[in-house]
């Protein structure tokens, strides 16, 4: 495992170039260019805001600027999570020539997908910044939690991305299962709502490792409060296990890729 990691580090330029290719092609082929990076997140955020207004009409509570900011933050991170899983699932099968004709650490492909989605998240985050200017939410020291929370999110999604890309190579219909999974997951993940709305069921929802991360980001960015540490360490643990398991199994299956693609 250590040797595999060292090989991966030695080929970091390749990781960068593959991610760069993915981004460049996406932007070159579409007239909309960089708009792509914010289109999907914007749609998700817009949907979230509509849902929020719908909920407030039912419960009689008005929608505050803070609510909208919260939905924006969580929507963007969700878009990153879903996009990274979706793109990494096809990352290996989209490059059959590179998998069967040339040797390289193959984990570079799912990693590059995650990396390119991360860049999209960065572009889209300027959106958050604009909204923050409007809402005048102001910054707090709690913002220092954001890098850690994002790091855990990236670790979590990377672990899953590794597993999903390999699974898609062996079984082509896993790709469709991912779509089904993501469509369903947006309802059980507190993206458009808060877990607190569910009172005694809140803890059950937080078992979803993404939930404490989204909640934490919302708390420290929008409300300037500290994330819940026990839940955060739970997510971190799940993320680390996912990453280790993802890398382990990916490397274990890798020698069979060329014959099975």
């Amino acid at each position, binding site marked *: 495992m250590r040797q595999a990691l060292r090989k991966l580090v030695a*080929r970091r*330029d*390749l990781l*960068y*170039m*593959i991610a760069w*290719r993915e981004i*460049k*092609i996406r932007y*070159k*082929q579409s007239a909309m260019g960089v708009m792509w990076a914010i289109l999907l997140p914007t749609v998700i955020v817009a949907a979230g805001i509509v849902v929020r207004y719908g909920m407030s009409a039912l419960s009689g509570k008005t929608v505050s600027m803070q609510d909208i900011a919260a939905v924006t933050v969580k929507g963007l991170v969700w878009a990153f999570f879903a996009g990274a899983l979706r793109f990494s699932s096809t990352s290996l099968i989209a*490059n059959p*020539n*590179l*998998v*069967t*004709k*040339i*040797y*390289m650490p193959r984990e570079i492909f799912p990693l590059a997908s995650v990396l390119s989605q991360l860049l999209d998240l960065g572009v889209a985050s300027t959106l958050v910044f604009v909204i923050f200017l409007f809402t005048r939410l102001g910054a707090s020291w709690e913002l220092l939690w954001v890098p850690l929370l994002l790091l855990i999110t990236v670790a979590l999604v990377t672990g899953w991305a590794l597993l999903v890309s390999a699974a898609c190579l*062996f*079984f*082509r*219909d*896993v790709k469709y*299962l991912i779509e089904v999974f993501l469509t369903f997951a947006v309802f059980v993940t507190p993206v458009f709502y808060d877990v607190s709305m569910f009172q005694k069921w809140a803890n059950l929802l937080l078992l979803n490792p993404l939930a404490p991360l989204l909640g934490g980001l919302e708390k420290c960015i929008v409300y300037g409060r500290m994330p819940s540490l026990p839940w955060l360490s739970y997510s971190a643990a799940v993320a680390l296990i996912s990453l280790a398991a993802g890398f382990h199994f990916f490397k274990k299956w890798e*020698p069979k890729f*060329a*014959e*099975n693609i």
Partner: protein
Amino acid sequence: MASDVVLRVENVSKRFALGERHDALRDLIPSILANLAGRSRPNSTAKKEFWALRDVSFELCRGEAFGIIGANGAGKSTMLKLITGIMEPTSGRMDIRGRLSALIEVGAGFHPDLTGRENIYLNGTILGMSRAEIDRKFEAIVEFSGLTDFIDTPVKRYSTGMYARLGFSVAAHVDPDILIVDEVLSVGDMAFQNRCLERMNKIIRGGSTVIFVSHNLQAIAELCPRTVLLDAGRVGTIGPSQETIKTYLQCAELGRWSQASDLIVSQINVRGAYGQKVAFDSGEKVWVDVEVQCSCQSQPFSVVLCVYDDKQYEVSHTSTEYLGCPAVSLKPGERFACTFEMDLNLAGGTFYLGVDLFRFDVEKVLYHLFPAATIFVKSHADVRGIVDTHPKIIAFGRASRVRSREEIGKT
């Protein structure tokens, strides 16, 4: 490992599973359930095996150029994939020392929408260079490819030759400890091919180890002192290239290729008007008898007869199918024979005949035999090249005056 051995292959075997494989969960899950219920149908996923390589061993020292030859399906490509680490051997060991670069696919990872410059960086990092290294070598790569004017054009506007030239240029500048070349010299025009051979010579002289797989026996003989012959996954012979190539040609002519095929070309006779011979005059008629044997029920096949020149370019090919004969299926133990008649309208030189058994409806080569026979052609007319066009001079002398373009147009 001895200090100067850079690659050691020890008793390496590789097995492939033939037959259908589950590549979707929707197929896998029902079959698992059927197995659990004890209703497994043994015939549905019959496990057939195929050994692409069996007990192959050899060693390579630093700075050595090593050739791999063999008929189609002998395991050459599988060997390269094992060496490069794309696949793992089923059994056996391989030890590799140093940076390895493989030219198995020219221009791997090229994206049509990216420019030549962008693709150099992409392809270079895929082949194992760092970006800083490409920065340093960029000028040399572009110059070698001869594409200076097109370097900022998307490669989708390149011709096939330009594409291949750019790909080879990048690969030729990797400076690996071990370079693996698989049949890529067949791209580009003659000038570029010569430059590739020169470059490979330079890489060899520079102390790199080179493994060269090719059907171009002449190039193998020129570049590699030592060659291994693979025969149906086993080492046929290993040793000095000239001798290995001779063995290969002899085996091929005798038609005793133990290919993974039930069909075998058992005999080839080349006849002139008065019996068997090998030296012909240009324009003479030649008869080629082909006899096919079958050990099991065969697929329907047609016989393809090819003529190659001494550089192994195909001069012509024909088949029983083209000539209007139906495909043949043989029962176990049956023999089949056919005779081709041809006019040898060839310029003087050495030519090789190749025979394939080909299934046209699914476009599959069932058996490949090259060279099946060698013939020498003597030309009467002084014509150079491949084809005898029977040239004659019917007018010769000073023209009375030069005609204008308009005058030519009128006549």
